[in-house]
């Protein structure tokens, strides 16, 4: 009998104490936040602009953010998130990262042997990477190291290449590249102008065999799909209406390629 009484007494006393404390000091929490967080991929890539997935989940639950900012979220999860929050989602254009450079070791020669930290961002402090084309990819893998999905490969010839099938378009590499060579483009586009050097064609060709020299052949062949960027000698795919894969054949330097 006393057993029961003692346990009940202790239990009731503890319960009352907790009740009093929570009455005076309690903070309300939001269960929605956890539900939303479950639906995010959990890669904490930061591509949404918030501090990790939990930060985005918090913003979503508080109504400060709209669903769809996470590029890596699966479409069905996005739908579920929207349903939870009672919001509608616009159909998003799926995007993919592309390295806009063709300057591997055969096309754009290294001017000097670099001795230092094996990271593009560090190499920028040593003669800006010592490449013939000062706009070119250094191939030391800053982008590959930040990619949460392992979608970027550094080729043997020191050029970063995004594997489209692995890329989920989070955009972390875009920030990591010190030469600003990586951009997010619609997944539907098949071919891209793999060059980012805005200088004159002749100057570019001195530094890289595979540069876009701005000859305009592609634009003449497919005026709706291609354009020349204002003020530069750089052709650009019209991503609103991307060209067919065959157009790559007209490019004399093969800067326009898959």
């Amino acid at each position, binding site marked *: 009998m006393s057993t029961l009484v003692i346990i009940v007494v202790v239990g009731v006393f503890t319960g009352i104490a907790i009740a009093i404390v929570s009455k005076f000091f309690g903070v309300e929490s939001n269960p929605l936040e956890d539900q939303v967080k479950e639906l995010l991929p959990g890669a904490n890539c930061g591509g949404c602009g918030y501090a990790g997935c939990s930060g985005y989940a918090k913003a979503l639950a508080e109504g400060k953010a709209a669903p769809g900012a996470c590029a890596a979220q699966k479409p069905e999860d996005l739908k579920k998130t929207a349903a939870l929050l009672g919001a509608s989602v616009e159909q998003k254009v799926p995007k993919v990262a592309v390295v806009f450079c063709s300057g591997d070791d055969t096309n754009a020669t290294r001017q000097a042997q670099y001795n230092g930290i094996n990271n593009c961002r560090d190499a920028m402090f040593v003669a800006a990477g010592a490449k013939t084309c000062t706009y070119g990819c250094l191939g030391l893998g800053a982008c590959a190291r930040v*990619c949460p999905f392992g979608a970027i490969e550094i080729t043997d010839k020191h050029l970063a290449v995004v594997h489209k099938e692995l890329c989920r378009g989070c955009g972390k590499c875009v920030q990591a590249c010190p030469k600003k060579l990586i951009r997010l483009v619609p997944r539907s586009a098949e071919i891209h102008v793999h060059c980012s050097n805005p200088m004159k064609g002749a100057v570019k060709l001195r530094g890289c065999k595979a540069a876009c020299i701005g000859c305009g052949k592609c634009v003449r062949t497919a005026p709706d799909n291609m354009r020349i960027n204002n003020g530069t000698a750089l052709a650009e795919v019209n991503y609103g209406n991307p060209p067919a894969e065959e157009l790559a054949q007209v490019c004399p330097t093969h800067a326009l390629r898959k």
Partner: protein
Amino acid sequence: MSEEVKNTAAAAPAPMPAKPASSAEPALIVSSSPHFHTKSTVDSIMRWVVIALLPACLAAIYFFGLEALRVLAICSIACPAFEYLSAKAMRKSNELHDGSALVTGLLLGMNLPSTTPWWICLIGSFIAIVVGKMIYGGLGCNPFNPALVGRVALLLAFPVVMTTWPMPRIPASLKADSALTEVVPASSATPQATASAVMPATTATPLKFSKGSRTHGSARNLLSDCTPAHQKAPLTYMQMFLGIGKSGSLGETSGLALLLGVILLICLNIVRWHIPVCYLGTVAIITGIAWICSPDSYANPLFHLLSGGLLLGAFFMATDMVTTPLSRTGAIVFGVGCGILTACIRLWGSYPEGASFSILIMNAFTPLIDRYTAGRPFGMPKKKGIKMTA
């Protein structure tokens, strides 16, 4: 393919070594400033540490005979071998040439009695190199002194072997007439030991006596207590300093040889003087206070300084670069901490020897010491130390 990609992403920042210029390669090297560099390298530092350890090794071989050489040789071959094998297994580039494994091997050997069987030496080497160092990523990344990790693990696993010391050789002039070759080989001695010049009986180190005397209340006669049976006159402090008639691990005998080594390292700026000086000073002060309060139950500070592994620890273990604080202030804190712990363990703990444990514990404190002794940068207002990041 995705596997390959992952490997690229995981690659630690590594240098791109400049190859000798061929016609196809660009000849010029670009690198960050500065372009001048001291001649001192990791390899040269380790080479000097090995050289500094040589007098103590020679002393050990002199006092314990070829048995000592056997132990030292096994450890100093096994450690580099284990480093090589684990580097292979971890697919790391082999850094054997830096000689740090050899240093660990020598230090481990110095911490073992000369009667240690070969397989215990091997186990110790394995623990020291693989568990103590390589799993952390090799030289520079280990939080604990590898040789001490090996030694303490052995001490806990094989307490009898690790605390059974053979009698050292003593000069003929000091030998007592009666206690000569009649001594029967003790059971723990190995056959090789009998063959060597070492007296085959085992004995306790002076420290053991200091421990025992605490209960008997006769710390005044320590020196004669711990004099080996085959020596006619009681041990003197000078003898203890030189290592004559003092049993112990290989590196615990000759204080002189250790001192020579550490002075060399201090002169070469490889070892900071702060750690050994503060360490020994703190031990002397604390044991001195205890001795003044109660000379009957505590040994005097000189005895403490000269006995056991304190000198070896203070000179070569506590001064390991990788596991000790970076700054001078940090080194002082570290030395004082080691001293307090060693003195406490020696005076009041159940182990007779505290040097190894106290250095290991202070190794664990090193990151904290680094953080709280970080100097105030030039031009920084006072009271603005290192902030913590959550």
